[in-house]
């Protein structure tokens, strides 16, 4: 048996499974991941394939969700777009988790001047609204997938730094940390092996919700032309170019938006479910 009978993980999973909304969210996200990974096999056409005789077709049997101004299949572009959105979401959050987490852990663990310096820097960053900061960074770096990830990732670093600092502060005074120190463990070992596993719960919740935020930010950035460059599809970018055909082809403005909203709601469901499941105060 992999899981101990009453381990925290098992309890959490049991509670999570009872949460219907979280399960729906999980199903949606797993489907999206599947679609994104196997986009090459699932999508009816290649995302860049132009059917120039069949531009701006309303949804029909051949093109289930219609075609855009270059005669590209909207469904295929949505499927490839899922790849971009999930990639940006995951990588961006990994960046903020790693950078923000390290800064927060160091600040909380060592305290003193270092803590003060790091947290004041975070205050400065928090003084700029995060979407705005992402826009500023993306504008400086220039468009592109990788730059988009960095811009969105860096913009939510302070959130993770603050969160981890707070958890580390409460955990580091515990006796098992003292025990580890008494046995001569290095600071790095204490932080990574002893303290971090005890700070996981809030981090997991925050990370899930942040993926949703990152996808929303990247859609916004693409919408104003700071995201991925055409012809590669991004949901926000698709909405942006659809605006020119609002009168003739309103469906172009519908599907990418629905994709975004469904993804965000699903991720929020999972995040909220995890928060409830990981909360020890909740009834079992």
């Amino acid at each position: 048996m992999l899981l101990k009978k009453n381990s925290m993980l098992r309890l959490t999973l049991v509670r999570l499974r009872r949460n219907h909304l979280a399960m729906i969210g999980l199903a949606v996200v797993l489907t999206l991941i599947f679609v994104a990974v196997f986009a090459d096999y699932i999508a009816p056409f290649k995302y860049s394939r132009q059917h120039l005789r069949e531009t701006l077709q309303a949804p029909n049997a051949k093109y289930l969700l219609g075609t855009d101004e270059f005669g590209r299949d909207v469904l295929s572009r949505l499927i490839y777009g899922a790849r971009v959105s999930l990639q940006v979401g995951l990588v961006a959050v990994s960046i903020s988790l790693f950078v923000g987490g390290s800064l927060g852990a160091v600040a909380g663990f060592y305290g003193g001047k270092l803590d003060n310096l790091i947290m004041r820097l975070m205050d400065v960053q928090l003084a700029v609204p995060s979407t705005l900061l992402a826009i500023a960074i993306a504008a400086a770096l220039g468009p592109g997938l990788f730059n988009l990830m960095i811009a969105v990732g860096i913009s939510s670093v302070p959130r993770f730094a603050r969160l981890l600092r707070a958890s580390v502060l409460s955990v580091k005074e515990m006796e098992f940390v003292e025990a580890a120190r008494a046995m001569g463990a290095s600071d790095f070992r204490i932080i990574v092996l002893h303290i971090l596993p005890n700070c996981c719960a809030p981090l997991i919740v925050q990370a899930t919700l942040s993926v949703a935020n990152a996808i929303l930010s990247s859609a916004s950035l693409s919408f104003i032309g700071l995201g991925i460059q055409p012809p590669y599809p991004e949901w926000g970018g698709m909405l942006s170019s659809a605006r020119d055909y609002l009168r003739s082809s309103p469906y172009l403005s519908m599907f990418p938006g629905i994709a975004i909203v469904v993804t965000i709601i699903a991720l929020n469901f999972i995040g909220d479910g995890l928060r409830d499941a990981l909360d020890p105060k909740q009834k079992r």
Partner: protein
Amino acid sequence: MLKYTIRRLILLVPVLAGVALLVFTLLYITPGDPARMALGEDAPQESVEQFRKNYGLDDPFFVQFGRYCYKALFHGDIGNSYVTKSSVSEEILTRFPTTLKLAFWAVVLGVALGLPFGIICAIRQYSIFDSVSMILALIGVAMPNFWLGVLLILLFSVKLNWLPPSGFTTFAEMAMPVFTLSGGTLAVITRMTRSSMLEVIKSDYVRTARAKGQRESIIIWRHALPNALIPILTIVGMQFGGLLSGAILTETVFSIPGVGRLMVESIKMRDFPVVQGGVLYIALVFCFINLVVDLLYAGVDPRIKAKYR
């Protein structure tokens, strides 16, 4: 209270300096030679060198940053646009009132609707009104505001032909942008008010008030709401930052001549001083709004006020 205000104002200085450093650094690392960008692609090499010398573009980073701060503080000068050659501050300040007006009405709408909705949801928990509002709030939080704007245009301008799809002067023109921008905020405020009220309604002193036979309306308005307001106030303050950046997208959708649209157009033309100038101004406003919110706390919550006596 005065001491607290002064202390908070002093604490603002390093934060603003940090924001200036951040914005300046982003401008500094932007690829491309600013002298070339300002003079144009086919300017002769000598005039580019002359320009670099005049504006001190070959000086070390911190010397340049010092000059940037000095000019910004004493002359309000944060550089010139590459495209129109006019002062960035001027370009932004002429458009700022529009953006502030948009954000202000969005906050007002969010609070004016979100607060009563949240309170009704909390009083009638699990009612149909509650469920429907919560589902709408769920969608509202997940909805990118630019898409909400596009949908509104589709419905009210393209299909029904009731409202104009662009502009921002008359009431009819303002209706859609303001609602678009406030959509997410409205959802967040409704949810926050509901959960905050639910928590307070369950507390002991509310039960005491009920036990002594106090009227329900007085319990809600006099006893519960003031205590529930504190977390709501935090959210409203935080939302304002999101609204100012959301305004960038809303202005793009509705072609409103505000700072956001200026920034988006500048992004397209690679006019970076204007973009970063916009970031600087919005961050400044955001800092002051946060300050005001923190001071309001003290007004709403006597416990905080007592600390700074």
